[in-house]
């Protein structure tokens, strides 16, 4: 009987039914060449198991066990609309021309200076390679805070979270203060790039006692959201899941 290599491997991997297994074993007994092939494959498996086996004996780092025991599980996850549905074909990031148009209408420079004067544990926005990147309190809030669990008196309030047409997570935010500033930031690699910034009269009027449901998002930010968003804003569980993945797509 001719035993194909495929069959021989399946035999070794325990994937053959009784009849085929018996056939391979008969062939192995009758033909030293078959027996040698099996021995060769078996030796490879033994080598692999001997090499990687000791890893099983290593103590598992406590940090990993803690991660499993305490990692956030969103019970409403089952109701989440799959993020895949929000994915759109990749399109280039907003062009420099669009960015300049935005910049012109929003007096970004003045806003950034105004921001820099605040003591929110350092400058919340920094200019880097012609882009504005969230820093300090703002960056931490964008990464860690959930709009579904607003914190009273927090310096940064998160509004809508959504996936952009280029497939990055974006979030609107408001920085509390005498004159609140609202903005839109999108995840770019490991940073939050500020796409839009504006003064937020409405948020200012609420005196910093920011409550998501009650706080209107300023028009320029809404317009930027409309332009950038693919699909709909994330709901609470999708937002939490995105945070768990540190804002990388599933």
């Amino acid at each position, binding site marked *: 009987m001719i035993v194909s290599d495929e069959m021989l491997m399946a035999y070794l991997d*325990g994937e053959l039914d009784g009849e085929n297994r018996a056939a391979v074993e008969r062939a192995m007994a009758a033909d030293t060449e078959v027996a040698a092939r099996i021995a060769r494959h078996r030796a490879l498996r033994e080598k*692999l198991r001997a*090499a990687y086996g000791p890893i099983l*004996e290593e103590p598992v780092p406590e940090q990993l066990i803690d991660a499993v025991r305490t990692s956030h*599980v969103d*019970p*409403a*996850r089952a109701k989440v609309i799959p993020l895949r549905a929000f994915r759109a074909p990749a399109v280039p990031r907003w062009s420099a021309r669009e960015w300049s148009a935005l910049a012109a209408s929003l007096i970004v420079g003045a806003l950034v200076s105004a921001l820099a004067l605040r003591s929110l544990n350092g400058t919340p926005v920094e200019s880097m390679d012609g882009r504005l990147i969230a820093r300090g309190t703002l960056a931490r809030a964008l990464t860690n805070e959930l709009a579904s669990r607003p914190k009273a008196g927090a310096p940064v309030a998160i509004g*809508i979270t959504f996936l952009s047409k280029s497939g990055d997570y974006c979030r609107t935010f408001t920085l509390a203060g005498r004159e609140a500033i609202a903005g839109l930031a999108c995840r770019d690699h490991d940073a939050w790039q500020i796409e839009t910034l504006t003064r937020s009269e409405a948020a200012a009027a609420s005196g910093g006692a920011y409550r998501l449901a009650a706080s209107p998002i300023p028009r320029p930010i809404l317009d930027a959201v409309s332009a950038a968003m693919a699909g709909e804003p994330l709901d609470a569980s999708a937002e939490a899941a995105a945070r*768990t993945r540190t804002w990388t797509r599933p």
Partner: protein
Amino acid sequence: MVAGIVIPSRRSMGTRIDALREEIVDLLPRLRRFARTLARNPQDADDLVQTAVERALARADQLRAGAAPAAWLFGIVRHAWIDEVRARRRRERVLAPQELAESVADRTSGTEADFLAVEDAMARLPEEQRTAVALVLIEGLSYKEAAEAMNVPIGTLTSRLARGREALQSFLAEPIGAPR
């Protein structure tokens, strides 16, 4: 345009999640080992496992009721690795370095040398063959489970496995220090 349609949800977590957590804790040694076939650096491998278990718990509902979590979890580790490699490539704008071999210089014991030889051979396999070999030959998953973890038909899995085996045989037959 409706702003802030984010409604907090406070349903109880239920015991199924707690049972799953304990099953994952029991699987951690195997997940770590599998991760070591992907990321050779032990710290990177553990980071990978951590990312994967957090993802797994965040989408625990994707695990079908009654299904064994092993294949599902191995699949999540693999996906996390693919994401990590992509992220590295984006960051570095070059191919991820294969992280080969500084450690090869201080081969001390025979066992260590054997391990490094096998690890080197594994690292030379294309990711898809290496994963197939790791899941079936090292982790002992069935073809069906491994195919599920890799999200491919069984025929694809077995052909990757066969090619991976042949390649490993030939790599390991090379004398140590042979040019590559």
